[in-house]
């Protein structure tokens, strides 16, 4: 419990620091102007969504391999939070696209593959809701969770592989050196840390809740 509160507290402090850095410290982008500040929320949330789907893969493989309910609960919790982060990534992206491109949405490769990612893991959650309870539903979900992850590197590489209105990656292995100014990198890293700690906190809470749900479900069926 103390660990969770520490995570929540750290996340809160980092968020406040991030807001202070965004509005009081980082320079305004010459080309994109003030709208570039959306970057410090949009990109970390996208990367944390990818991390969440990575956890889904680990949990799904763990479930298929060991038949561990804990791993299944971990995969489910990560998928739900991953969908939340992907939804926010898409919405913040649209709110950035409107002032910069003049449209809320365009069917560019990176945006389309991101939307497909959202559909894949929303479908995962729907399968878990509507498939039979117990092993069968968990197995369907695990297979979907693993196959769905194929889209994650495609989203990341899309702007590099195809002609795209969306800018290429400015962080990570594909980024050109010096594509971000020093202060911007620091603010971005603080943002990434803030959203990662928030993700870790939410994951722990949702994982515990999922375990309790399974327990109640089992009790209900054994009693009936």
């Amino acid at each position, binding site marked *: 419990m103390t660990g969770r509160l520490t995570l929540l507290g750290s996340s809160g402090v980092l968020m406040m620091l991030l*807001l202070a850095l965004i509005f009081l410290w980082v320079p305004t982008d010459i080309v994109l102007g003030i709208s570039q500040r959306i970057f410090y929320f*949009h990109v970390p949330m996208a990367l944390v969504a990818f991390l969440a789907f990575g956890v889904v893969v680990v949990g799904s493989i763990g479930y298929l391999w060991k038949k561990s309910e804990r791993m299944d609960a971990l995969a489910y919790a990560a998928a739900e939070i991953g969908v939340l982060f992907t939804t926010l990534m898409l919405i913040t992206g649209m709110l950035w696209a409107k002032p910069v491109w003049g449209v809320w949405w365009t069917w560019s490769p990176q945006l389309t593959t991101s939307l497909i990612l959202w559909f894949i893991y929303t479908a995962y959650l729907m399968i878990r809701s509507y498939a039979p309870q117990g092993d069968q539903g968990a197995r369907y979900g695990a297979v979907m969770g693993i196959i769905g992850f194929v889209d994650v590197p495609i989203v990341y590489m899309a702007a590099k592989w195809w002609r795209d209105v969306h800018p290429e990656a400015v962080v990570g292995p594909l980024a050109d050196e010096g594509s971000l100014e020093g202060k911007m990198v620091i603010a971005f890293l603080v943002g990434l840390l803030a959203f990662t700690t928030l993700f870790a906190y939410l994951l722990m809470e949702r994982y515990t*809740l999922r375990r309790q749900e399974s327990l109640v479900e089992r009790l209900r069926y054994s*009693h009936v």
Partner: protein
Amino acid sequence: MSKRLAALVVILILLTPAMLGSNHTEGEDYLPFLFAVFAVTWVAFFGYAFFMTRKQADLKREIDILRQSIEESEET
């Protein structure tokens, strides 16, 4: 009610730096979009926390019902 008020206060606190910062930036036409990004993000996270709290309360209620039902069946 007090929880909603607390949530609103937290949202306002989180948006304060944005309001302060608006004096130092150019391109104020874009500010509503920036505010929208922060508002949507915080509403979504608080909404998700609320959803988890509700789910936790539902589970607790269900556990109580199950316990009562088990006790009753043991008595008979």
